[in-house]
């Protein structure tokens, strides 16, 4: 039987459908990562402010988002928002909202960390060379911040892709849902297809995440002083 199970992958357009499902996941993560970077940069800069109220609010936001499982956040937005605002949010939109909120929190913290890790004398030695403040940022501060930030941000992206797998639980038709449909459709002809299809999904995720996390590791190694 086992040699038969794998053929279900190549029947009709099954494999293409799985890839299509994966694309939904990747698409949602990419949009969320993009938005998280923009909002995260803002949040990170806000978090370096000394204002106690700002500090307190951002801290509460950060801690709440971090301590709640992402699935709980998805439920809060998907089920909660529908009821309270009468908005019928789709699973995809809920997912983008939640992952952007989460990503912004994580990214904001990374940006804050990178910003405060630049020693003060970097600004001073820049000034001592006669650079203007705009040039100091352009040539000294921003490149150093980016070096610290980029590997961490890339890591965040792989975490985002993995976490996006959760959206199947709020009804989005993504790779796991497509897998279920394929298995269901071939229930009688290929009874052991679940092993192969879910195995395939497992490796699809791996193929997407692995190169990206290798990239992060390599960047980190390259840029560590």
């Amino acid at each position, binding site marked *: 039987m086992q040699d038969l199970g794998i053929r279900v992958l190549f029947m009709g357009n099954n494999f293409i459908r799985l890839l299509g499902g994966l694309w939904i996941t990747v698409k949602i993560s990419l949009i969320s990562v993009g938005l998280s970077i923009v909002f995260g940069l803002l949040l990170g800069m806000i978090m370096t402010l000394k204002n106690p109220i700002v500090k307190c609010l951002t801290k509460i936001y950060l801690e709440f988002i971090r301590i709640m499982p992402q699935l709980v956040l998805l439920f809060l937005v998907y089920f909660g928002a529908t009821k309270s605002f009468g908005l019928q949010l789709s699973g995809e939109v809920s997912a983008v909202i939640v992952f952007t909120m989460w990503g912004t929190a994580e990214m904001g913290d990374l940006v804050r960390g990178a910003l405060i890790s630049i020693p003060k004398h970097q600004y001073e030695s820049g000034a001592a060379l006669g650079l203007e403040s705009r040039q100091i940022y352009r040539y000294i501060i921003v490149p150093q911040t980016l070096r610290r930030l980029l590997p961490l941000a890339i890591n965040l992206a*792989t975490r985002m892709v993995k976490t996006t797998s959760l959206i199947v639980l709020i009804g989005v038709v993504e790779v796991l849902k497509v897998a279920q449909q394929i298995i269901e459709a071939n229930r009688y002809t290929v009874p052991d297809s679940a092993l192969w299809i879910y195995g395939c999904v497992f490796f699809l995720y791996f193929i997407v995440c692995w190169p990206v996390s290798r990239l992060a590791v390599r960047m980190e190694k390259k840029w560590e002083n």
Partner: protein
Amino acid sequence: MGVFYGRIEKLDTGFMAEYFPLYVEAAKLTFRLGMTGILFSLVIGVVCSLAGYYHVPVLRQIAVVYVELSRNTPLLVQLFFLYFGLPKIGVMLSSEGCAVIGLSFLGGSYMAEALRSGLEAVEKGQMESALAIGLNRFQVMRYVIFPQALATSVPPLCANVIFLIKETSVFSVVALADLMYVAKDLIGLYYQTDEALLMLVISYLVLLLPISVAAGLIERRLRYAGFGD
């Protein structure tokens, strides 16, 4: 703000009191399975990190492949494979078995990475000076290397514990009546969305806040009081 205030007013406290015990049971289940998984994760983490540290042939390569597989795939997909895939080749696992195996498979690599970074941070000379007073290799690890590595590894290990308990939130897919399952059930059956979600959030806060606070305290103690500073 008004929207929220109005909703707090309208909360059905009777409903909440009635179904509160379901959450308690679910939280207990989550906690029990989570802790079991974390324990196995630690064991796997120790084995993998030591295999790397001592350059144990074969085992080391297996550990590298395992860590990459585990870290680059979601727990949800791992659970689908275990629960729905494996029975097709005759490997039948109970729901709890799947949950614990899945969580350990995921957590082992995270623990391994945390411990590896700790082991790498211990200075090379420590091993030699411990050998030089006649300790055997096991004693060197037990009394000299491991305690130092652990001190460095505690912050990431704590972070992993919190991360893994959060990850248990997908256990409902292997038919376990965990917190998400209870909440979804109540929403589906009674449309008491606000109450169900509020209790869900509170349950996770009760479960995770103490661990998070404790982790913060341990970390601070290590940083400020470590080894006579």
